């Protein structure tokens, strides 16, 4: 198996694994944050505006972890530096 095939295979597999593993943590975290915010709103409806704003900010921050994984898997597929390196040296 030549190096081009190896790099292509490993990049695609790792891109999938990155998304799969990397989305577990943020999913649990967002669910936990949302459920706590809902019970907080149920207890104190007057503070709903503040709680919602804080919830949105926290959700975006938690979600950015999943977004990092997404960016890395996209780089592996579309902008892989090793892939371009192998292609240019092969010529």
């Amino acid at each position, binding site marked *: 198996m030549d190096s081009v095939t190896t790099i292509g295979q490993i990049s695609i597999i790792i891109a999938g694994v990155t998304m799969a593993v990397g989305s577990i943590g943020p999913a649990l975290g967002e669910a936990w944050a949302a459920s706590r915010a809902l019970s907080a709103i149920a207890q104190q409806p007057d503070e709903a505006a*503040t709680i919602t*704003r*804080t919830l*949105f*900010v926290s959700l*975006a*921050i938690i*979600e*950015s972890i999943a*977004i*990092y994984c*997404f*960016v890395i898997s*996209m780089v592996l597929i*579309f*902008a892989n530096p090793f892939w371009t390196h192998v292609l240019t040296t092969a010529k």
Partner: protein
Amino acid sequence: MPQIDITPDQIVYFKWSFVTLSATIVFTWVVMALLVTVAWLTTRRLRTGVSVSRQQTLFEMLVTYMRSQIREITDQDPDRYLPFVGSLFLFISVSNLLEVVPGYHAPTGSINTTAALALVVFFAVPIFGIAEQGFFGYLKHYAQPTPLMLPFNIIGELSRTLALAVRLFGNVMSGALVVAVLLAIVPIFVPIVMEALGLLIGQVQAYIFAVLATVYIGAATRRDNEVTNSVVHSSPEVKNG
């Protein structure tokens, strides 16, 4: 499989030696020109009294809402930070909103734009902090709560800038990419739903970017050391004042 451009940097209109005119630059200028033109047309004839134009009402609403948000987050006079934070919000918001226009590529979908915006925040925070608290007063923040935390505070400063850039880039890019992939699989109706979701995410991300910039500035300029719960904290007497 057709080539999918993951950033608008890869669309090049014009190239001459080291000058490259990519879609990022073009659409950044389109958004800026649009914002400046609309703002100029509206503020050209501002009126007080009962009958004001619709555009003026919209702009007053925006500015009032931004001021109240900044005041709630920083507990300070919002007019100091309104031009900076408001411009950031308007630029990101409009560049994400125009994504419904065919042929438009959001400049925030390029890591270069978002890195530049994050760098602006990175430099604005110490500038506001030093202007508010003096040079050594601001530097003392880094040695809080103990000088042992100094390296962690510096790393935190750098990593939150990286996070700010990658978060906005990743969200906008993923929205465009999901639509592109769906167009290849189910070209009818389904991409529209994702496009609508992308619009919502774009607005939320613009809000998040502005709020985080405000939180960082608020943490750097606050005189007491109560920085951790700055988002949650809002006192009613300040809100009314």
